[in-house]
Every structure is written in structure tokens, then in C-alpha cells.
């Protein structure tokens, strides 16, 4: 069967339709993008799963303590009385915490900008 010379010849000489110049580079760019997307998807999925498991564990622990071990919860923070003096102090602490968060956010943003060309 493999000696069908005429059939072999027409199949081998027929237009092979070469791929255009830069096809592999273009495709490789798509593959790289897909790899990044895959990585991001994996990160989001892992984060979601870890959060879900954590919340479930916390909820489970609370339920166990409250209903099976009959532990009474009291939140001391609810008994705090706000005066004008403590109010201004809380305001200052919140301002400092907010500032620290903004600075940390900016630090992460600039770091990601700096590391971008390496990807």
C-alpha cells in the first residue's frame, strides 16, 4: 500500500500553505498571556478556597464552643464609653492606620511597576 507512488507524489507536492512570518512569535505571545491568566486564576482559586476553609473553621469553632461546650462570649469592646477626649484619640489612631495602609499600598504598586519588565 505504501508504494502508491502517484498518490504519494500528489499529496507531497500539493500546496503545503506555509505559515506566515512571525506566526510562532505571535502564538508564543498568546501562550505567555494564557500562562499569566492561568496563574492568576490559580491564585484567585487558592485564595478563595483558603478563605472559605478559614471562615468555615472559625464558624465551626464558634459553634462548637457556644453550643457544645456552652462557653459564654462577652465582647468588652462593646462596653467602651466614648467621651470627646477618647473620640479625638480614636480619630488620630484611625488617621495613622489609614496613612500606613495608603503607604503600604503605594509601596506594593511601585514595586509591581518596577518588576513588570522582568515578566
Amino acid at each position, binding site marked *: *500500500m505504501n508504494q502508491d507512488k502517484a498518490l504519494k507524489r500528489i499529496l507531497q507536492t500539493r500546496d503545503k*500553505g506555509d505559515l506566515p512570518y512571525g506566526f510562532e512569535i505571535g502564538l508564543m505571545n498568546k501562550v505567555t498571556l494564557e500562562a499569566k491568566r492561568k496563574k492568576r486564576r490559580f491564585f484567585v482559586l487558592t485564595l478563595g478556597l483558603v478563605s472559605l476553609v478559614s471562615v468555615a473553621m472559625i464558624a465551626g469553632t464558634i459553634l462548637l464552643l457556644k453550643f457544645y461546650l456552652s462557653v459564654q462570649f462577652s465582647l468588652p469592646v462593646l462596653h467602651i464609653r466614648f467621651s470627646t477626649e477618647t473620640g479625638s484619640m480614636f480619630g488620630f489612631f484611625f488617621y495613622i492606620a489609614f496613612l500606613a495602609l495608603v503607604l503600604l499600598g503605594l509601596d506594593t504598586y511601585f514595586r509591581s511597576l518596577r518588576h513588570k519588565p522582568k515578566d
Partner: protein
Amino acid sequence: MEQQKDMEYIKRILDGETVLFSSFLQRYARPIHSMIIRIVPCREDAEELTQDTFMKAFRKLETYKGDCNFSTWLYRIAYNTAISATRKKKITFPVLDESIINSLPDEAVNELLNKDEDEELMQKLEQAVELLDVESRALITLYYTEEKPIIEVASILQLTPENVKVKLYRVRRKIYTLVKSKENESR
């Protein structure tokens, strides 16, 4: 040896060295494209399907377990991608009378398919190949052009080796019938 090297590359790609995928592109993009273009004759479609094949292969790379050659696995994806594209377009192929195909003498078929000096016959052969259904075209491309062994062709087309042999036998007869009907038309 090649299989081992491919497995090593796949492991590294899955570990994050995406750039190594380019070696697969360099090695297999052209042969895969040349098979697809014989199934889907439109150049633009064939190019897009080649791209789809590699993207699918990359997305499902972790499912390749090394039970066949990496090239076989890639060809299988390419074949399935091309087949589903042709199904969407609903191309119809001429139906040949089974009794005529079965009654053909082997010697006549062998003689016709080996006459490679007759240019007029070569043209008719080419036209006959164009009229074949998608699976038959893929089959003869893999067997005659890519020179793949029967067992590999069977693995790509998801058939048994015996089935491939039978199909090859029938495709040769179909080509003969189509060439003869072209000859009768021109008379």
C-alpha cells in the same frame, strides 16, 4: 529519547518555564498546519485552527501522561479541532456506490495509484483527493505525507490499527472510482 526530552520540557513548562513551549512550536507548528490545511483547505481557517490546536494543547498540558508520543497527542488535538470546524460548516461529500467499490480488482487500483509519470492522471488524482471526506483526507495525509506508521495513525484518529488498514484499503478504491468517473466525464 525524544519522548523523554518532551516529558522533561512539559514538566518544566508546568513548573512555570512557559518559554520552553516555543520549542514545541518550532518543531510541530509546520507539520500540524500542513495536516490541517489538507482537511480544511481555506488558508486563514487552517492558520486559526493551528493556533487553536496549540492553545488547547497548552491549556491541557497537565493531562498529557506520556502514554503516547507528544507529537501523536498534538496531532490528535489538531485532528479533532479540524473535524469539529468542518462539522460546523456542514460540507457535503459525494456518496459512492459500495457495490462498485467492493467489486474493483486490486491490480487495477494498484496500477493506477503507481502511475506517477502521467501528468493528466496526476491532475485527476488531485481532484479525486479533493472530493474525499474529511476523515479519509486526514488518513491519507498522515499515512502518505507525514509517513506515520499505521499504529500512530490509529492513535491519532482514535481507531484500531485494523480499522485504519480497512479504511486505507477503501480510500484507495474510492480514489480509483473517482478518477475513473472523471475520465468518463471527460470522454
